[in-house]
């Protein structure tokens, strides 16, 4: 796809993928937000958290159940501290965005949740990460089993050099799933809004897809084993704007079934897609964590306001 497409093209594209919802909806909702906002000056142009209307027009109900709780989480790489006393409740079926400047620890935080940091020898974790009523850093927790409940999508699309079907089925295969794999593959690809584009070429290589399709394939691969949480580490940063906007639409749908935690360096993206936003600033400290609208319109901390308005970072 051509990244230089005009914004108009982009909107149309987005509506197209959303099942032909008329464009007026989009414009109308933006106008509403402007009205509702009255005269207050906005830090960032925040369209309502879900700028693309759902097909069925219902608003996702916000859960008050926590999916993941961290307490006094400190992470060190050798002598360097990457996270400093992070305590945070992440709610079920929320889209939680983690933002902050480079090196602020947001990706480290993400990888601490599913213990991907275990593979880094010099990495040391203190504190608790509670998931499913258990501290995932307890001695009796098997990181392999943990990662089967927490899917992950990476910065650059990384499909295996295998067929589209085998890519999506990989998680099921290693977990010894003996049900109808094809049905699960189809379901996952539909959830990842990729089914219609690839249903006739399931046996061709995942690497033959475009970058945006590859990333949706990776999302399908992550959700096929039906995890509870999906972690996303800057999933759109390697994609062109059109492909990125498709992923953004998808994230909103995913939150119906999964708890989504997304690291992004793109503040507009955080504002568009998330319910809650956590701002990490230098030193691996969680500075502010609140509803996304609150963070972007009226943050408590001056530093957060400075960061969001681009005064630093």
């Amino acid at each position, binding site marked *: 796809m051509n990244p230089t497409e005009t914004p108009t093209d982009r909107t149309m594209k987005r509506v197209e993928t959303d099942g032909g919802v008329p464009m007026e909806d989009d414009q109308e909702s933006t106008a509403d937000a402007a009205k509702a906002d009255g005269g207050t000056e906005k830090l960032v142009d925040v369209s309502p958290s879900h700028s693309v209307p759902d097909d069925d027009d219902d608003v996702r109900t916000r859960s008050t159940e926590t999916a993941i709780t961290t307490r006094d989480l400190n992470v060190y790489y050798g002598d360097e501290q990457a996270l400093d006393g992070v305590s945070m409740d992440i709610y079920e079926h929320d889209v939680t965005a983690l933002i902050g400047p480079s090196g602020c620890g947001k990706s480290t935080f993400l990888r601490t949740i*599913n213990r*991907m940091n275990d*593979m880094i*020898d010099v990495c040391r974790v203190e504190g608790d990460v509670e998931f499913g009523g258990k501290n995932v850093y307890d001695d009796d927790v098997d990181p*392999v*089993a*943990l*990662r*089967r409940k927490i*899917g*992950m999508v*990476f910065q*650059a*699309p*990384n*499909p*295996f*050099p*295998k067929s589209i079907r085998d890519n999506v089925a*990989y*998680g099921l*295969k*290693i*977990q010894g799933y003996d049900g109808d794999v094809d049905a699960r593959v189809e379901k996952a690809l539909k959830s990842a809004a990729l089914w219609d584009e690839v249903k006739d070429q399931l046996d061709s*290589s995942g*690497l033959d897809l475009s970058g945006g399709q590859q990333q949706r394939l*990776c999302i399908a*691969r*992550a959700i096929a*084993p039906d995890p509870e949480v999906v972690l996303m580490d800057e999933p759109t940063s390697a994609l062109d704007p059109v492909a990125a906007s498709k992923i953004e639409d998808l994230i909103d749908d995913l939150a119906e079934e999964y708890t989504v935690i997304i690291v992004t360096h793109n503040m507009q993206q955080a504002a568009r897609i998330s319910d809650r936003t956590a701002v990490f600033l230098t030193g691996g400290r969680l500075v502010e964590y609140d509803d996304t609208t609150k963070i972007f319109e009226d943050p408590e901390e001056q530093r957060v306001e400075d960061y969001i308005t681009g005064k630093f970072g």
Partner: protein
Amino acid sequence: MNGEPALTRAAADRDVKEKMVGVLLFACAALTIFVTASILFTLAYDTITFFGFEETTVVDFLTGLEWEPRNGHYGVWPLVSSTLVVTVVSALVAIPIGTAAAVYLSEYASPKVRSVIKPSLEILAGIPTVVYGYLALVYLTPWLRDIGLPLGTFNLFSASIMVGILIVPMVSSLSEDAMSAVPDSLRQAGYGLGATKYEVSTGIVIPAAVSGIFSSYILALSRAIGETMIVVMAGGLRTSLFDPFDPFGSLAGSGRTMTASMVNAVTSDATGGSPEYYSMFAIGLSLFVITFLMNLASNRIAARYREEYQ
């Protein structure tokens, strides 16, 4: 230093230098082609001389089952069969061990362990093959006989095992290179889905590196086919046709490979200019054709399975 910059002349100087470098580099590249072509020409020329003797014909050479120069039998199959036996048995030794070592080095070993083991394996590849031949004859064969195998003093079995050990470093080193070249993002994806290290190694890394791994096998096999010193020393020189109904019997006895026969042609009392002397060129050409075909196959396979990574 403050004068006008001499734009044109400097550029012209550089031009000449660039051209000279280009010519020099081309000469080096051309030399390898020239040498290869010369070898081929010599082999072909002397092979024609060999087939010019009245007791030798191309058909007898390619179909004959007996190699008895003294009686005028020049059938190449006993030599080819011994060569293939050595190649197959050495592959059975080297491929599993070499691949497993490569997986260990690439996926399991800590950087510290790798920094010890990898150079050690490469030293193994640097030992002169005559030393391996000596080890096979003086230590391996007696030891195998001690544990009860009915081996002759010279036998293809010890020779094959030693050739296998010789090519393990080739398999492991080249396969490890192919596995290390698999992008780490694929491993991350596997671990992120809850795969174990074993599942990531066998289900993701090996399939992604399969073309490189295959190439390493073919290269190692070409090396086994051409190996000379070990088979001469430990395998002996008695020509024997491999008997598929008694494979171990064939392995337990002496056998003369193509390379061993060529050594024999120059070191034995065969007079220069005799058909036996010239036979080594015909065998050499056959050997060249076999390894050439294997390299061709290797390239095909590598191209067939090559995957583009991100």
